[in-house]
């Protein structure tokens, strides 16, 4: 590849960036008010499309000169739909509003934009520090986060390349194209970037292996086959800032000498696919993708490949097989894809987050990146924190942050005054960590040592009402369904484990079941062919290690301490507390299991009860008479009187 004059590349880029800045500025000037609605998949699920439409109608109806644009995801799922309003004439900074449905959107237009009242009761915070309203930086959620990969998420229009270019986007690419390819690899190596897909393999080392592998053709694959239950980091990134990912791909391809790049996205992410395709078309139109990028002589074709949703296709060898048109099934490594990948060509397979971290590193240097995070795991980690936390969502925190800080400060702790019980990190391949390990720093090595793993960044927080046996069963059920069926341990072994866990949650555990779980679990871990099988038993083994008493309770006492396994629980009504004449529980019971006793108090027929818990949540708090016990024999028997037959 013959590269042209660096000055020419810089000149080409400067022209592009200047034109983009001008276009963005021109657009800003045309409208006195700028409104941004977060319409990534998460926002849309919360009703952002309706909000967007309502804003548009209201603004048109009231003849307000406002521009309404769609942006990606800010990561604050608990507050969706999120709307940002910048109304400079009001003297206020850009304001971020939470939970704006269509009605509130119309109200904001009427009261704020027309009449000047900023409706502060719906405000989350101001986006910039100011004298009038609290800014986002006063909140733990914002000030403890460190956004590198997600720096533009939720603030720029993902479908407009100019928005990215105007913020010096593709600048790192232009600078890199003026330097030898080795300089890029050296910077990434010096930065100590580790793969964000889960295993934490040094990215620079992988790139060098591909660079030095024999053969003229190389391939870059961006792995966006995100499949962990409850994880959506990659989707949010692709939907919110596709150009940063694309720039990372370009940098990687330049570094390893690839002429072809592929983005493997699940077909279940239609919006991500659409925004990526738009981004590629726009970048190609500006000479940033295709032949002689920025006039440098470096060519790269970028394609989007839609995966069909098999979890195991996130494993790199299975992913490559499925692109090649075969069954998506892992193959033994070595040979690694770095020497023998797609169509037997040397191939880099990197996660979305890894590639998206590259442009900021190239722009700011490796020392800057090393200054964030820990020595062994520099940079930031992105987690989608879900489950029992007050503020679920996407968070980007420096590596080395303690779990306790992430859960209780950044994500606002456990709702409803419940007790923290466990946190599941790393998806179905990760582990369940108990409260005693909450002071563990979040980095690749600490989590692996504790039996969990970084994974791609799914994090499920569980409170006291969660049964660990049931959680292990849930994740194993997922793995069992997603096992490709190739190797003995994963195909048959996980099936046996699932049978054991299922009978334990039904109270039918047998002596020796715990040993079976442990022994077979260890064999599956050691004997399986690919990473899916090797890590499939982590949720079982870690929960068994840290919550053995709970397993024992299920096995020996047929008791579920959390009261979550329905066959092991029973509801009864405390007759001392039950109020005469209150019929709330009778009305809400879906199976007519609640009856009236001779004293006009209530009882529950254990034969009919399906343990849905409706009566418990319906019982007025001043009585609080419904009790849940485990094992079911502990519930006192209340006879249904003859006169109160079912249905009367």
């Amino acid at each position, binding site marked *: 590849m013959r590269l042209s004059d660096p000055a020419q590349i810089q000149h080409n880029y400067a022209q592009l960036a200047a034109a983009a800045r001008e276009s963005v500025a021109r657009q800003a000037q045309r409208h006195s008010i700028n409104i941004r609605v977060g319409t990534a998949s998460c926002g849309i699920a919360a009703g952002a499309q309706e909000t967007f439409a309502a804003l548009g109608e209201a603004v048109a109806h009231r003849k307000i000169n406002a521009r309404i644009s769609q942006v990606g995801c800010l990561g604050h799922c608990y507050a969706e739909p999120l709307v940002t309003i910048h109304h400079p004439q009001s003297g206020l900074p850009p304001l971020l509003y939470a939970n704006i449905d269509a009605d509130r959107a119309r109200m904001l237009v009427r009261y704020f934009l027309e009449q000047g009242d900023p409706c502060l009761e719906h405000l989350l915070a101001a986006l910039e520090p100011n004298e009038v309203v609290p800014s986002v930086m006063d909140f733990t959620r914002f000030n403890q986060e460190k956004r590198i990969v997600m720096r533009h998420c939720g603030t720029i229009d993902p479908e407009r390349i100019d928005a990215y270019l105007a913020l010096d986007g593709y600048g790192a690419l232009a600078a890199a194209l003026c330097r030898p390819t080795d300089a890029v690899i050296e910077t990434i190596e010096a930065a100590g970037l580790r793969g964000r897909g889960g295993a934490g393999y040094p990215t620079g080392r992988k790139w060098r292996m591909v660079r030095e592998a024999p053969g003229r053709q190389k391939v870059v694959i961006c792995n966006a086959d995100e499949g962990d239950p409850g994880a959506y980091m990659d989707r949010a990134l692709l939907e919110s800032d596709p150009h940063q990912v694309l720039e990372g791909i370009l940098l990687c391809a330049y570094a390893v000498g690839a002429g072809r790049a592929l983005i493997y996205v699940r077909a279940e992410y239609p919006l991500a696919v659409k925004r990526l395709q738009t981004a590629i078309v726009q970048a190609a139109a500006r000479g940033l993708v295709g032949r002689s990028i920025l006039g440098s002589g470096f060519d790269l074709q970028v394609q989007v490949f839609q995966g069909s949703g098999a979890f195991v296709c996130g494993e790199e060898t299975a992913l490559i097989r499925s692109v090649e048109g075969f*069954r998506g099934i892992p*193959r033994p490594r070595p040979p690694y894809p770095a020497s023998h990948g797609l169509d037997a060509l040397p191939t880099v397979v990197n996660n979305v987050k890894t590639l998206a971290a590259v442009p900021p590193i190239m722009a700011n240097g490796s020392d800057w990146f090393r200054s964030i995070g820990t020595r062994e795991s520099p940079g930031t980690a992105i987690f989608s924190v879900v489950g029992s936390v007050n503020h679920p969502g996407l968070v980007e925190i420096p590596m080395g942050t303690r779990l306790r800080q992430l859960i209780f400060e950044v994500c606002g702790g456990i709702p409803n005054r419940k007790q923290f019980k466990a946190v599941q990190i790393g998806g179905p391949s990760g582990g369940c960590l108990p409260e005693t390990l909450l002071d563990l720093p979040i980095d690749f090595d600490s989590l692996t040592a504790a039996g969990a793993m970084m994974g791609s960044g799914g994090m499920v927080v569980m409170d006291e009402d969660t049964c660990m046996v049931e959680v292990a069963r849930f994740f194993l059920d997922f793995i069992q369904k*997603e096992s490709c*069926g190739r190797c003995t341990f994963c195909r048959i072994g996980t099936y046996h484990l699932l*049978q054991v866990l299922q009978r334990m949650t039904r109270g039918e555990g047998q002596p020796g079941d715990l040993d079976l779980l442990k022994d077979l679990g260890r064999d599956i871990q050691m004997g399986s062919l690919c990473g899916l099988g090797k890590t499939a038993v982590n949720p079982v083994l870690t929960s068994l290690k840290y919550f053995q008493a709970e397993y024992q309770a299920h096995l020996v006492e047929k008791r579920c301490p959390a009261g979550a396994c329905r066959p092991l629980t029973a509801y009864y009504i405390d007759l001392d507390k039950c109020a005469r004449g209150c019929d709330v529980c009778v009305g809400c019971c879906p199976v007519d299991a609640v009856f009236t006793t001779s004293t006009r108090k209530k009882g529950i027929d254990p034969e009919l009860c399906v343990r849905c818990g409706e009566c418990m949540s319906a019982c007025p708090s001043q009585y609080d008479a419904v009790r849940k016990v485990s094992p079911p024999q502990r519930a006192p028997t209340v006879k249904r009187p003859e006169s109160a037959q079912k249905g009367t």
Partner: protein
Amino acid sequence: MPQTDLDPAPHITFTVDDQPATGHRGQSVLAACLQNGVYIPHLCYLEGDQHPPAACRLCFVQIQGQPQPAAACTTPITAGMHVLTTTASVRQLQKSALRLLLSVHRIDGKRCSANGTCQLQRIARHLGVGLNPRPLPRLTEFKPIDHTHPWISHDPNHCVLCGRCVRICRRIHDLPQVAMTGRGFDTQVRLLPAGPGPSGELCRQCLACVKHCPVGALISRIKPLA
């Protein structure tokens, strides 16, 4: 790399259970051991495979200096390598994998077409265990035998999903008449119901898949079975 170009020239010497052995550069530990007369349990290995599937997880060996056992079919031999085939952890993994396979394998005894030649029987004998998967329960609900192919029947109750039939068919004919279908626990080998025509005739003359089946899951209907 698995064995690709068998270069006969450079012989490599290594040891298996402290006995000297030789092999070719690029040969897998499994192939070299079998060549030297050392039996290592295996089901899915098919001689001449460029990319062994390493699916049956039975051919574990301990390479001295490595933290844990490795599959012999995908580990290339190196000069001076010390291979141990009978360590406790190797045996534990092999017995565990065999138990798993037996837990979904219907034992038909004398009625089984492979009785006496069944590789599962051989492996169990080699490991000194019986055909009972204890402590695992048997999960053998009866699956119907597939008679749709004109010459060959497939008994999923016996199949161990080693994939040898799929690979040998692809190797010989390049147009596979037999393939893996389904995923996970429900994976099944299926024969294409080749109707009358050249492919049905091809199968009748070939029957390589039947010959290569280690457990008698593929049964030829051409001549009456003994």
